[in-house]
């Protein structure tokens, strides 16, 4: 680029840079700064104490473990169901447009509202899910499975609500990806006598790889940060069975008033998320490399 070109580029870049610095870099800096000070008054420098507390806290590891289970479980199920739905819709059967709009509807609902809906559905006294399972004879009584009050199922219930809410997103992205695959590849495969499975395995999936990686990456970060659905369903309970890092940070900051500790937790959370994304992108898909 010539000097004036570079100057023009800089000029175009500066508003965005200013915005980023004001609303991103500066708050991040404050976050790091807060994490190095004590939680009670915010004025005493404690260095890495907050981090050490976090890394030696049982609650932190439990929340981290729950977060991992939640993310891996929810995202993988969403991926599979989303892929199936996308493949189905891509065949363009009669009424597929209507079906697509129908499938997209959970995405239009605010997560908080979705959480409330599921809270009522999963209720053991009034909820339709248990009533339905009971009528089908799959459970002994509507109170056999306490979705939200049993430690074994609390996290699962949150995952179910989240899967219902965001599978449409996966479906949409994958559908767009599938529709982007050139038809000539399929024609060539047909000529060579490839079966349906082979077409899917050797053409569809590899072509979808960048799309899948992006969708999974976005969903992973989103799922890790889930808060409203969990909060409205179980508030992180019972007994921290569904406590994710996000609910733990919220409790620490808003309820216990420990700004320093909460900041340290947030920084750790950010580091974990960035490393996972980094590994993901380096190993699976680097947008700068030419497509293989």
């Amino acid at each position, binding site marked *: 680029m010539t000097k004036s070109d570079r100057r023009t580029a800089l000029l175009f870049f500066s508003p965005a840079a200013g915005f980023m610095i004001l609303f991103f870099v500066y708050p991040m800096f404050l976050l790091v700064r807060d994490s190095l000070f004590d939680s009670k008054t915010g004025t005493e420098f404690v260095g890495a104490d907050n981090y050490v507390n976090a890394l030696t806290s049982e609650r932190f590891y439990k929340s981290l473990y729950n977060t991992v289970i939640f993310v891996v479980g929810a995202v993988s199920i969403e991926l599979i169901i989303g892929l199936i739905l996308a493949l189905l819709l891509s065949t363009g059967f009669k009424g597929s447009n209507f079906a697509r709009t129908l499938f997209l509807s959970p995405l239009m609902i605010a997560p908080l509202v979705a959480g409330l809906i599921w809270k009522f559905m999963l209720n*053991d*006294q009034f909820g339709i899910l248990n009533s339905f399972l009971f009528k089908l004879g799959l459970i002994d009584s509507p109170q056999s499975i306490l979705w939200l009050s049993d430690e074994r199922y609390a996290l699962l219930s949150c995952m179910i609500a989240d899967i219902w809410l965001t599978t449409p997103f996966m479906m949409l992205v994958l559908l767009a990806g599938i529709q982007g695959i050139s038809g000539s590849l399929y024609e060539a495969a047909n000529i060579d006598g490839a079966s349906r499975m082979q077409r899917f395995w050797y053409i569809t999936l590899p072509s979808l790889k960048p799309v899948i990686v992006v969708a999974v990456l976005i969903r992973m970060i989103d799922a890790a940060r889930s808060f409203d659905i969990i909060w409205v369903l179980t508030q992180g309970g*019972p*007994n921290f069975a569904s406590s994710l890092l996000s609910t733990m940070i919220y409790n620490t900051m808003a309820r216990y008033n420990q700004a320093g500790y909460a900041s340290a937790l947030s920084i750790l959370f950010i580091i974990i998320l960035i490393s996972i994304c980094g590994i993901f992108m380096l190993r699976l898909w680097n947008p700068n490399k030419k497509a293989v």
Partner: protein
Amino acid sequence: MSYRKKIGLAVVAVMLVLSSILAGCSGKNANNTGEGTANTSNAGNNGKEAKGGSITVLVEGGSPAFKVAEATAEQFKTQTGYEVKIEAVPYIGVYDKLNAELKAKAGSYDAAIIDILWFPALASGLAPLDELFSDEVKSDLYPNLIDGAKVDGKLLGMPVWTNSKTMLYRKDLFEDAKEKEAFQKEYGYELKPPATWQEYRDVAKFFTRDTNNDGTMDMYGTGVLGKNNGDSVASWLDHALQAGADRLVVGEDGKANVNTKPYVDALEFLTKVLREDKSAPEGALNMASDEIAELFWNGKMAMMLEWGHFFVPSNDPARSKVAGKVGTAPMIGGEKGVGVVPGPWYQVIPASSKKQDIAKQYIQFLYERNDQYLAAIGVAARKSILETSGQKPEYSHLISLGTTLSAPQTKNRPVLEHWNEIESEALIPAVQAALSGKKSPQEALDEAAGIINEIQGQ
């Protein structure tokens, strides 16, 4: 054609910009209820509106505090020339905003109505109100109601209403001749609202039944609170007081006492009702006052130990299917008699407010209209109101409330800086662990005591 298209695009663009601005603004005050009276968080210093200025009041949206503030705003303005700006947010939003105000000291709020639980955390940012407590005022309030607002010897809040759990029961079931006969036969004494732990268990067990033999319980005797919030802890502490607890949760020496006999007995009592007698709905770990009341109002529960004001909606046909059939009685008594943890709300003034004198006038103003809270929620603070209104049948719960609140074992929760953390990290998990059967009450409370001491040691 292309001209129309351009106009169309321009309209869409303007709408997008407007909606993103509005979304950004509403994001700040996303939880406002009410018809537009609620607004901005920096209204305190806005002298442009009323000629006398204005005060900003922070209340829980939809709560009686909100309703009364709204209903009396006009009158206050006529009386003093000051406009009352009401900011309504969800329950914990009040705590969050006052907390933020404590640190920012921006003078955003001149008055707020808060839950007694928040005093320890907010005390350093509240103005003392001792001067408002004349002898006349003090004589019309229960002593432990006044003490609830005392931190470090200073009174930081004026009670607006007091509340505690009392007994609400199905009069029609208890007065039915057939039920009375069956109960007398089975238990050997007359069926009436229980007054002791044993009677409570008996009655609850008696009324738990599968009336149509379809395998599901159609009626439960009572409900047990086990949800992941402070309500469950309050319920358990009620019974701990009845069993003889003295200083709640933390003893004189600052060490946890939750694993001593009264607390363990109380937790065992609740666990037995739930797991042994099975006279409460199994989903207790996700049930608190609202969920239990819902079952009661649907005719699926014979009695409930609920916050006193639930009596009013229980007899409202619009809310409850058993309206007109609900009776009230004082809280049950344990070994050491009747006792409860009261749940009062107080009006406070942030120390950073720039209009403290006007705010104090506002508090006085609302104190004189304390009966309006009675109309809004069914409870009030002043003894005179509770006693006279208790004579009316629709407010008969006030008698039960008065008896319960003046019982010798009725004590406030402790003023602890880390109360929120203690409740969330130690007490709620202990209650839930015992109710779920995972740990015995003694084990669960031993662990809780350890955690409390750790937190207190910070």
